[in-house]
């Protein structure tokens, strides 16, 4: 690819396409790299493609801020950051080599570092979007502290493209840790849940904790001296001496390449408060985020799974399943009546004609 192709702004063309769709009342399906097209309820709305709108707009390593267009590949972004020893701290999953920045922020998924480093929304500084009336708008900015106007950037983060088409995004970035090490320790799930929660309450360089099939895995990362000193005080043995292999373990977990994910039942993502005991749902469960994000392959019925998660103070999302089941039971946990009304009002204010990603998040948005 020539550098012109890697770096091009087709914002005005996209705005034009939205304007035409608006005038015709034609719904649009916003498509980046389609790496997360499985997430949410699909529709056959007319596609609008962002992949050509790509390139890093600005990057200042000493200011910890990067701005890139929505079609920029997540892999490109990660590489550019790694060249300066920096990273996206929330470790977003790509799920495919085609993943783009726009989809990453619209889906707002975060990797194993989430309980320690924060989520996608915690690094969202600013964005440029096209709203449902084809206006190109800029919110937030490229500085870390900014309270001018409502925080529309966070509103866009995780909105599944239902409020606007993301043109570009500014993110806070952080240094890559100097060193990392993974400890593995055989453990019952109950024991692991307590250990993982307690560990976060100590001043230790923990950056991930997961329980998979009888083993508690803990990632330590930061200054080498601190990691080594910390490892000496914790249970478990290093998974490997090679930091690259340690990193690969967490990459596989994040990308659903770990062998746990080779199952065919519907996959649920269950989010629960700290120290929630194992839920009474049939199926095979992996505990990430110190036990607060659970991946569950289960054929139990959706209502049971949702109500069980909800009674534990959490919620359940039908992450991967066939289209029929997704359409039947919905993908995202409903937010309750008052909040659902607010969702409808906000959708109406950003996208009055209901153009963007109809029904992808909730059936009536």
């Amino acid at each position: 690819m020539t550098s012109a192709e890697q770096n091009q702004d087709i914002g005005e063309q996209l705005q034009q396409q939205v304007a035409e769709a608006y005038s015709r009342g034609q719904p649009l399906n916003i498509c980046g790299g389609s790496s997360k097209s499985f997430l949410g309820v699909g529709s056959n709305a007319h596609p609008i493609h962002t992949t050509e709108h790509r390139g890093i707009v600005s990057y200042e390593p000493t200011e910890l801020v990067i701005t890139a267009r929505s079609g920029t590949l997540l892999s490109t972004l990660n590489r550019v950051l790694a060249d300066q020893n920096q990273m996206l701290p929330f470790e977003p999953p790509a799920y495919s080599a085609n993943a783009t920045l726009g989809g990453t922020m619209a889906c707002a998924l975060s990797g194993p570092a989430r309980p320690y480093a924060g989520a996608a929304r915690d690094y969202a500084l600013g964005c440029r979007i096209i709203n449902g009336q084809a206006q190109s708008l800029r919110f937030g900015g490229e500085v870390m502290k900014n309270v001018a106007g409502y925080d529309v950037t966070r509103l866009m983060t995780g909105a599944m493209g239902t409020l606007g088409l993301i043109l570009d995004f500014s993110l806070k970035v952080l240094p890559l840790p100097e060193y990392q090490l993974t400890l593995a320790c055989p453990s019952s799930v109950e024991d692991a849940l307590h250990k993982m929660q307690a560990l976060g309450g100590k001043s230790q360089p923990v950056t991930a904790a997961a329980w998979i099939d009888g083993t508690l895995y803990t990632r330590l990362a930061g200054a080498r001296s601190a990691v080594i000193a910390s490892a000496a005080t914790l249970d478990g043995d290093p998974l490997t001496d090679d930091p690259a292999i340690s990193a690969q373990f967490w990459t596989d977990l994040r990308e659903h390449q770990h062998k746990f994910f080779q199952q065919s039942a519907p996959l649920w993502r269950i989010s629960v408060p700290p120290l929630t005991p194992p839920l009474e749902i049939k199926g095979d469960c992996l505990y990430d985020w110190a036990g607060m994000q659970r991946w569950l392959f289960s054929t139990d019925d959706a209502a049971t799974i949702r109500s069980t998660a909800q009674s534990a103070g959490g919620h359940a999302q039908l992450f991967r399943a066939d289209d029929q089941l997704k359409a039947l039971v919905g993908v995202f946990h409903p937010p309750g009546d008052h909040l659902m009304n607010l969702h409808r009002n906000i959708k109406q204010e950003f996208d009055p004609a209901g153009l963007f990603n109809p029904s992808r998040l909730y059936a009536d948005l």
Partner: protein
Amino acid sequence: MSTALFSEPQTPLEESARMSLVQEFLKFLPDESVLHVDEDLLPYESDGLSVYRQKPPVVVLPETIEQVQTILRICSARQIPVVARGAGTGLSGGALPLVNGIVLGMAKFNKIVHIDEQARTAVVQPGVRNLAISEAASDFNLYYAPDPSSQIACTIGGNVAENSGGVHCLKYGLTVHNVLQVKAITIQGDLITLGGTCLDSPGYDLLGVLHGSEGMLAVTVEITVKLLPKPSSTKLLMAAFDSVEQAGDAVAAIIGSGIIPAGLEMMDKPAIIAAEAFAQCGYPTDAEALFLCELDGTAEEVADQISKVETLIRNNGVTRLHVAGDETERLLLWKGRKSAFPAVGRLSPDYYCIDGTIPRRHLSTVLQRMNEWSEQYGLRIANVFHAGDGNLHPLILFDGNVEGELERTEELGGKILELCVEVGGTITGEHGVGMEKINQMCVQFGSDEITQFHALKNAFDPDALLNPGKAIPTLNRCAEFGALHVHHGELPHPDIERF
């Protein structure tokens, strides 16, 4: 300026309507919770930005969620505006009363409901003071990270409404990064729960949107915050320089090297001198610039980082480098910085605190321009910055008794904010827009963005009763101010009458 704060005419509440409102509130609130005579109303006339004053017609001080719901339902039915208020330490006139609305004081919501040691969370009422949370959590070796300099007085409800920061937010984040859940009452009187104790919640990030919304979307009645373990080791390093530029380069070098200090605060010469005179904390008063760099974590990590930071600073022209010898000295060095505002306050009858953020690389350009303006306006400026994240607090010294000096100060302040926007920054890092920076909003945003902001408010508050007229200017006001940000060379909304 303070005489014409609102461009739209404000019609005071008629006396009969005021008294009937009081009667209605007295049906479910005790006498002492419904203030309506002048002497009781006086303390509510302004927030921390005391150059703006307005006596409120009525102040109510509820103490239960149901009372807040009833108050909001009444105001909604009667179309009476509502200004929520915490401790009134805000610096942008966010809690400034309206002539036609009530002040909803949240001071009686002052209980820490629950601290969960294992989950490391605290459930608190919005009127709880910021520092009180860390004090209560201290028994469990935990603390609440965001630490605004006003933390002994400001409330957590105010912190959410302003998305307040503190000297430790470079590493630990702003209020929005440390709040898990908020219960709030909408203007319709509905109780809503935003966020939750899980690490995410379904649907739009309404918790994020509520942060920094300046009391314009809903009234917060309960907040669940995240508590952090106290770091096992903390070290503070003080470095002095011959120029602000060198200090700025040293800051960039530290962050570029991959170290994120817990706090990184800088002061210029006038601020150093004022702070030293006030706190006698050992700052070198001959320095042109000074920064405090705090590192925390495990003992190994801190030892490792402090030696790296020392090397980096030495390579960037430091004139004095000192690591606090013990906890007492560390706190004393912080005291100087944290009391910079009152310290500067002693140098001059009045001072005005500005709050812009800039990309840090433009620091010396911005400071130079400020120095030129300072001479031009004949007004002294002392600077304190949250240097790690580019948040500037120029303090303009003035004398309100000198005819025209406040107006000149406001004009200078406005110019500084516009300069922040010009170099790619923002008009407010943490103090909010409120009433104060409403004109500069027209510089930072175009008419389409401003319209979208109003639309978002409309989704929550269709009759515009929650803190109306604050934070987001009307397009008319921007036209009047003559500063609508012009997109692609076209004047937005040519149909709007200009003044």
